[in-house]
């Protein structure tokens, strides 16, 4: 908070206690898993197995062909029975590989482990590329891409903040496998060639901070440090985290100011890939929200049907006529109109909320959206440009910089869907560019 700028962040009640005290439940699907054949933008992929083939945990299933190359490995043992179009969290139906589970689950080594302490940068980067690790923060961007140009990088930031309300999956992952976590941080730090590695953890999770610090002491790691950060939203956003930890600003990518940011769960996956040759198969996913009977964390294979998980953990409160099923947290997650979507590789939560909306009123220009925007945008002004359909002004007012964190809608006392207005501006500008 300064004279010319607002706080650019806001405390949001986290409601984490719904799920952070109980152990994660290990669940398995009864019959099938459905592996989405979709990465980021499209489903143009090369399938590497034939219908009827037997696959094991760790069998390479397909490789993406457009954009960055990412292999995807099987999360279960079973038989590949064909493709099916199913609802997907990208809001459009996408092709899924159907794998019928076999009785015995067997894990094979997806790839040869690599001794990272003696490996060269090129070897490690190639290994990362082959391991199929994608960012676990939600966006699902291939991790190796961030490390392709490691010049001038001096700091690696590991994001263990988990600022979205309700979600505790990352917290559970680190608590359950802190050794993998610290190894992963060290591998990523070496890969980035960064002198220091900062691990951002919310102040409100002192047990997690202690846990990581103890492990760091045990391994006697230097140049790595846990930094408690305030419990505000969007602290897990790259920009806000870098601003808080390092007091640096950048234009488009964190690498411009010498920083790479990776999610905590990504670090865990990295360690398992390097040390055990394991690809991503099981995920910690938080199932939480006021509309659930028993909110909990679950450990499930990638591709498990959400409706099946909901059934196994006790379902949605039966006295509700309708609810909001959100893939992700309540701030940035998208609502799903069907419950038979599957757990995708970058999904870390399903939030189920009661369906009640607040009535919108006239904007009174209070400026809360402007003073809280973590990007320093002026959502109310962008919304005005949208109303006037003035693309020039939308561009000038920086609509394209919006990270859609949703804070402007959250703080709006008139209950206006401010974020959606900015999204409209973004869509209009994208259309114009085409």
């Amino acid at each position, binding site marked *: 908070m300064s*004279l*010319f*700028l*607002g706080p650019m962040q*806001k405390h*949001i009640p986290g409601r984490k206690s719904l799920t952070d005290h109980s152990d994660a439940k290990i669940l398995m699907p009864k019959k099938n898993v459905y592996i989405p054949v979709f990465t980021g933008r499209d489903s143009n992929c090369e399938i590497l197995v034939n219908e009827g083939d037997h696959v094991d945990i760790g069998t390479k299933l397909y490789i993406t062909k457009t954009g960055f190359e990412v292999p995807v490995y099987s999360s279960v043992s079973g038989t590949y029975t064909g493709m099916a179009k199913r609802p997907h969290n990208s809001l459009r139906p996408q092709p899924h590989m159907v794998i019928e589970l076999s009785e015995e689950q067997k894990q094979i080594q997806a790839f040869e482990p690599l001794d990272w302490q003696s490996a060269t940068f090129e070897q490690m980067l190639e290994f990362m590329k082959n391991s199929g690790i994608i960012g676990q923060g939600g966006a699902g961007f291939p991790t190796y891409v961030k490390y392709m140009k490691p010049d001038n990088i001096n700091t690696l930031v590991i994001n263990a903040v988990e600022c979205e309300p309700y979600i505790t999956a990352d917290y559970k992952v680190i608590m359950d496998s802190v050794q993998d976590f610290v190894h992963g941080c060290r591998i990523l730090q070496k890969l980035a060639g960064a002198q220091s590695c900062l691990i951002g953890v919310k102040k409100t999770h002192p047990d997690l901070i202690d846990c990581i610090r103890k492990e760091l002491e045990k391994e006697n790691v230097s140049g790595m440090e846990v930094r408690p950060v305030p419990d505000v939203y969007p602290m897990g956003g790259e920009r806000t985290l870098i601003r808080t930890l390092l007091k640096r*600003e950048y234009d488009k990518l964190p690498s411009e100011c010498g920083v790479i940011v990776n999610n905590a769960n990504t670090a865990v996956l990295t360690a398992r890939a390097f040390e055990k040759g394991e690809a991503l198969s099981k995920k910690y996913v938080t199932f939480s929200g006021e509309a659930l009977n028993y909110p909990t964390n679950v450990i499930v294979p990638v591709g498990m049907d959400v409706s099946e998980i909901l059934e196994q953990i006790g379902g*949605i409160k039966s006295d509700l*006529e*309708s*609810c*909001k*099923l*959100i893939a992700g947290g*309540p*701030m*940035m*997650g998208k*609502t*799903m*109109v*069907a*419950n038979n979507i599957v757990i995708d590789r970058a999904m870390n939560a399903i*939030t189920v*909320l009661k*369906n009640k*909306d*607040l009535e919108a*009123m*006239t904007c*009174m*220009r*209070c*400026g*809360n959206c*402007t*003073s809280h*925007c973590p*990007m*320093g*945008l*002026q959502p*109310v*002004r962008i919304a005005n440009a949208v109303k006037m359909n003035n693309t020039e002004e939308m561009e*000038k*007012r*920086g609509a394209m*910089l919006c990270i*859609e964190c*949703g804070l402007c*809608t*959250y*703080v*709006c*006392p*008139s*209950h206006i*869907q401010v*974020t*959606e207005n900015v999204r409209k501006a973004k869509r209009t500008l994208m259309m114009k560019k085409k």
Partner: protein
Amino acid sequence: MKFAFHVSPNLQSANSTQKIMRDLTIGLSVVFGCSVVYYFAAYGVSYALQAILLLACSLVTTFVCEAIFAKVKKLDIKEFISHSFGWVTSLILVMMCPISITPYAVIIATIFAIAVGRLMFGGFGYNIYNPAAVGRAVIFASFTGAATSLTTSATPTTVLSSTFNWLPGSADALGSYLDYVGGFGGLLLGSYPGAIGETVSLAILIVGVFLAVRNVIDWRMPVCYLGGIFIITALIAIFSGIDAYNGIPAWLWYPCLHLLTGGVIFGGVFMLTDPVTIPTVPAGRVFFALCAAVITVLIRLKGNLPEGCLYSILIMNTFTPMIESALDAPQLKQTKKAIIMSVCALVMGVCVAYYAASTTRAVNASKTLDAEGTVVAVIEEEDLA
């Protein structure tokens, strides 16, 4: 089970426009209550009742205006009134009027404030000018004589303006003025008849801090506005070389005199912070408040009006769209521009201070005033010497 679609985010804070307006109404009512208590204690029941009567007239007029508007627009009357928050305008308007004003004048002021100032622009959220200021400006200009026989005493502002040119130059002149208003303590606690709202400055400040902490009003507005007035008037005191008062240097007592006299504290806390009529971006708000401070001081010292706060707000309201379009880029990319703009506003303030100090004749004579505020005796400085 139906799975409803909704755009993200799916979480909204418990804060609402209703809660903000409720807090503001409570804050204004506390200040109004303090004034009524003061009038009751100092002048008796009739004064207290007069204040309440004025408020009642204004509130009824507001509700009638809005009901008619809602009827014409075929809207639900109850919902329209409850979502229009006209009573806040009423409260502010009444508190800007002196206790001596007739109820008719208040009714006309309210009609202008609500109908012209607000409904004509489309209602709550769309008005360009602060509606209460519009209403007050109308009767300021046209109903100067419409005062009841309840009181004839001039307000501290009019006395300071007409008798002392807003620039009492010597300790004696200031002393004679302070004798009339009951000293600085009297100004702070409001033990003088002024506008209803400006009576208890201390209460306004406390309520202001409370509202700012609850994020009902933007703290930048009163801080920059009152801070701006303090700096400019301190410069005037330095440039014009007026005397110290009982050991208090002029650059300290003169700004205090400005801040505690007239409605600047009330204006800074309750009127300048009306979000509808000020820029939405913090940098723009700082610039807005600083410019309003410059205009206030300019009108006070060089204008023909006794008070500058009201008009400075109306003038700056006009520039709100301009300030907004000037500061339209992402905020982190325009901090430099915002700083330059604010520095320009301050430079303008320095110019105004120099201009005012060099052209205003300081009143050095000690003037004895009677209860009505008319001068009964003048002792020139030479005589004292």
